[in-house]
């Protein structure tokens, strides 16, 4: 009960803070929207190539961008967080009787809500550009986005608590982000890739999220990629949140 109250309290607080200064939310949307406007048209000529998945260029690209938004948008929550660590805000909260679980969940809930807001805007823009996806499929792929956001946000917080330094975190992110994005088949589908890349991508969990969203967008609810995507993201999100909760409990903040 107390955890619920405290989570709600912190969620409201963080949401208010974010809405007061929504720069990061807008910046987070900028990249996927630019990709949609400037890169999606480049895919059109190859949309009829053999090996290009069903759904047309924008129908294939948008679900990928949703995953990209989930990854990049959630990674950048850590920058504000590290500033907070340095100002002793988290430490002050940890000396109050606040539920330890709420310290994490309140944040994650805010991150997920902001991500859903961004994802809705992104799909809206894609729709204006001619996306005609299965509405139920789009709604269900939002659940993938939520799981993905939970996973990436919680891992970011845990890593931030270990490193406690913006520069170190930025280096780690830069190191990871490009291979993750390329091996997820977000920009160009992996079905076009040589075998060895497909094999490497097979161990990239984000590739599962992309495949599942693509299947959902074209209404293939019974495609095995869908349950596989939910399963992989669900398990990893759970582990990620578990890791974050542990780090907040012990964190040397």
């Amino acid at each position, binding site marked *: 009960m107390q955890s619920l109250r405290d989570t709600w309290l912190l969620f409201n607080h963080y949401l208010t*803070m974010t809405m007061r200064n929504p720069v990061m939310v807008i910046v987070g949307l900028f990249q996927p929207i630019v990709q949609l406007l400037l890169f999606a048209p480049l895919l059109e000529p190859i949309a009829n190539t053999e090996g290009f998945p069903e759904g047309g260029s924008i129908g294939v690209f948008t679900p990928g961008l949703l995953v990209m938004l989930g990854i990049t948008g959630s990674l950048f929550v850590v920058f504000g967080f590290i500033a*907070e660590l340095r100002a002793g805000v988290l430490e002050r909260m940890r*000396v109050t*009787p606040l539920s330890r679980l709420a310290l994490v969940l309140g944040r994650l809930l805010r991150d997920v809500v902001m991500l859903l807001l961004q994802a809705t805007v992104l799909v809206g823009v894609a729709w204006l550009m001619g996306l005609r996806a299965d509405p139920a499929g789009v709604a269900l792929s939002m659940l993938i986005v939520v799981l993905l956001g939970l996973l990436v946000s919680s891992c970011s917080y845990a890593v931030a608590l270990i490193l406690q330094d913006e520069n170190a975190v930025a280096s780690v992110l830069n190191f990871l982000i490009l291979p993750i994005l390329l091996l997820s088949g977000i920009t160009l589908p992996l079905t076009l890739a040589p075998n060895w890349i497909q094999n490497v991508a097979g161990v990239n969990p984000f590739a599962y999220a992309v495949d599942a969203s693509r299947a959902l967008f074209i209404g293939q609810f019974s495609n095995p990629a869908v349950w596989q995507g939910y399963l992989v993201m669900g398990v990893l999100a759970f582990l990620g949140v578990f890791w974050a909760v542990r780090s907040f409990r012990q964190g040397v903040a």
Partner: protein
Amino acid sequence: MIILETKELAKSFRVRGRLVEAVKGVTMSVQAGEIFGFLGPNGAGKTTTMRMLTTLLKPSSGQATIAGIDLFTNSRQVREKIGYVSQAGGAEGASTARENLILQGRFYGLSLPDAVARAKELLAALDLEQIADRPSSSYSGGQRRRLDLALGMVHKPKLLLLDEPTAALDPQSRAWLWTEVRRLNAEGTTVFMTTHYLDEADALCQRLAIIDDGRIVVEGTPDDLKRQIVGDTITLGLQFQPETGQQVQALLQEQSYIHSLEYDEQAVRLVVDRGAEALPKILRLIDDANVHVQTVELSRPSLDDVFLKQTGRSLRESAN
């Protein structure tokens, strides 16, 4: 009544495979109602001890209780009883003082109207009303410190823990903080504070413990510590004749309160018990022998002397 008690509290960290013993064994007790100073150079283990006492760190071994509650098995209950102001403060810069205080009140389970009322009360008490609705990132160092203190007092804690409360404050804010700590103490709050300023510990604390290299080296009232360790120094400037030094030495030889005596061509230096009482007796003896006293200087030992004696180092050297 004891409000805070620790027994052999110790913490070691593993840093790059090496075991670092930050706190080796802290045993102390703080009485309800006092201002207790925790004094030591940087790196002595003050902050690590503070982090254990505020439930932020689990100790490697040893015990601690606050108001009789075990700090590590019942952390949640302990958190309700203590207020903590860290060195960094911990106010949220993007929020105003009022918002910070209301939220902090909610953290302690106050209803929204109660939290609003309490925030108002604290803003008035700490003279923050005029800036209450500005983002706290715009405050001066002194204003920020007042907000930090208010945040630690939201739930009227029995025990207030202050980590280096006056570090990096201007002299005026420092004086204000001393007054405020005394006022809170007079209203019944027990204060436990770390500091590396000796004058602060001397002026503010009723009792103190000195920590060095992870252990408490001495605990007591500032006066006790000073008395038990050094004794007072008396310097007499005399009108010297060739024999004066020996003469004075002979006169004072029998006096049991004198620990040591040395002289040169200008002055006689004595280390004595209770200098203020010894001085008139000494002057009378010398005067009776027709030795003319020109100047008298009595100096009481400082806490720095205590520290030097206990650790072999000056606190000022260690701090740098």
